[in-house]
């Protein structure tokens, strides 16, 4: 099992060192919340701030979300778990951050928990990897010998559904939406300003949480994240009404992988699949 205390110590040491040596101006990691079970995303900017850094099983936030908040060129150290590192890679691909401005502190971890439910976050709601894909400094022991969980297994049940039943399922789920936009705000890939749903011309949907607007918002957001979603599951954990958004994102990710032979956020050399093409792409994908 993961030694959370050890990782916290390493995180503090590295954060302190990086800030002290002036290699970065901010360390994005986790800090104390109002109690043990509720840590918060934390931006340490001074050596004194390092004291407040924590790491425990509830630190599931994807810190890549905060990268785009800093002006381009800011030297940032960022603590990443497996899925988070893929988000960083994806942001590098999309030229939102530059690799040379980042110090990536990798955290190999298993056994993260959802603070709301206390459930272990497994491959069901996240990408099923344990080790960060990209890092400069590793803060713990890589997880080996553990059977890699299959992230798309959970889809089988829904894929097998009759299409009308699936429509009913999604209609029911998406109609719960209250349009607080926590999903897009928690998403490391949702950085558009303004978001299409806030535009008044063209106005894509009503502001009130009603079925047509909810459908428009979510279907389009699923599309905008196609080939970019790195399956961290933050959207679903942020959702106050527990819409299983991760299911749809997983499905789209799976289809994109099958069609275009590329997984989001695995290499900084890649280009996001929907801003790329191959002449040899087959028309079969349109059938």
């Amino acid at each position, binding site marked *: 099992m993961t030694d959370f205390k050890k990782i916290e110590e390493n995180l503090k040491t590295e954060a302190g060192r990086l800030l002290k040596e002036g290699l970065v101006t901010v360390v994005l990691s986790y800090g104390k919340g109002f*109690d043990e079970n509720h840590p918060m995303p934390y931006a340490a900017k001074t050596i004194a701030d390092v004291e407040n850094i924590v790491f425990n099983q509830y630190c599931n936030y994807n810190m890549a979300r905060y990268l785009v908040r800093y002006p381009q060129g800011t030297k940032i150290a960022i603590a990443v778990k497996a899925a988070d590192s893929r988000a960083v890679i994806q942001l590098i691909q999309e030229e939102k951050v530059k690799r040379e401005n980042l110090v990536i502190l990798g955290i190999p971890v298993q056994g993260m928990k959802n603070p709301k439910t206390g459930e272990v976050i497994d491959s069901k709601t996240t990408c099923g990897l344990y080790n960060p894909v990209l890092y400069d400094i590793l803060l713990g022991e890589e997880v080996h010998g553990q059977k890699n969980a299959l992230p798309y297994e959970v889809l089988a049940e829904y894929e097998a559904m009759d299409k009308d039943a699936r429509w009913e399922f999604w209609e029911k789920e998406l109609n719960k939406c*209250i349009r607080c*936009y*926590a999903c897009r*705000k*928690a998403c490391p890939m949702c950085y558009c300003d*303004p978001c299409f749903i806030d535009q008044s011309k063209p106005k894509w949907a009503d*502001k*009130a*949480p009603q079925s047509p607007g909810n459908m428009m918002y979510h279907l389009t957001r699923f599309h905008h994240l196609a080939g970019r979603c790195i399956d961290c599951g933050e959207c679903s954990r942020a959702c106050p009404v527990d819409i299983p958004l991760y299911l749809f994102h997983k499905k789209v990710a799976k289809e994109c992988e099958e069609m275009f032979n590329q997984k989001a956020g695995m290499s900084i050399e890649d280009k996001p699949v929907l801003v790329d093409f191959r002449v040899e792409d087959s028309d079969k994908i349109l059938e």
Partner: protein
Amino acid sequence: MLKKTAIENISQLAAVLMEKGTLLAPVKEVSCHNFAEISDPQKVDLKFYNTLMSPKSAFFPHREDFVKYKVGKPLSEAEHTILNLKPAFLFGVRPCDVKSFEIMDIHFNAAGIIDPYWRARREATTIFGYAYDINQPVDSADFYNTLGIYAADPEGSDIFMVKKDKELLLKSITPKGEKLLAELSALEKASSGDEKYYEDYIKKGKDYKTRFTCVDSEVIAKKIESIFDNTDFWTKMSAACLSCGICTFSCPNCYCFDICDDTLFGKGTRSRVWDACMFTDFTLEASGHNPRTQVYQRLRQKVSHKYSYHVRKYGVISCVGCGRCTRQCPVNIDIYSIIEAALKA
């Protein structure tokens, strides 16, 4: 007047209330409870700590239609929404949420121009307050004691309810509640033992402790005013904030709204829809100028509005410490901690 019923027979009471009018009560959803208009009395469920969303939507729905119009047609042809409300019963409201209605009343129902929709809904509704179960542990996010509210505060309710083992005691507080309670013949008479239990429960409610910090409204209002320009403080407090709208949507005291025209095929509705000061475009002007582009400015606005501006304008803090914003926040931002820190800043 004190009456009682067995909690397992709650659906009978619900059925009676449904005959008299609209019943809004907590129902169990997949992973939470929420207030909903009851169509099946069996659905009323009192086994909840507190609802996910606040009961403010009973008086201030997420969407309130003003007018149905046809594009390009004279204004006189537009159909105005007329609220012909049946009597309504808002059942099972926690004391802190009851208190929130009084605070919202100042804004919508007393100061300046009166909001006709809020007033109409408020007047049609009888409130059944429901004490927190003092035999269960308190949620770590709650801090209503800080705002001078206790777990079994009957104030503001028309009828106040406390749980006694498998029974529910109902006490009338206002004349409106008294009249209604007298009419509810399905309820049993309470014994003198029940009377004593009720009184004791109200007293014991004061010892049921949530998080507490001594907050004087004048002191905090002044303090927050004085740290307005302390950008470091607000940046630190908002470092994690995602600036989504869940804290304001779930808050029983947030009232900001937008007025939207939704048109389809030449017909449409003008309605007011909840808005949130945490959204980027909340203050975006037509000129393109936006006074609050940064997350820290928006969080500052939210906290200042509740704990300072509202005190200056209406004399009370616009927060009841129900803990919803803290519980629902995806990144655990805790307004109580911000206030604590502000007092020290």
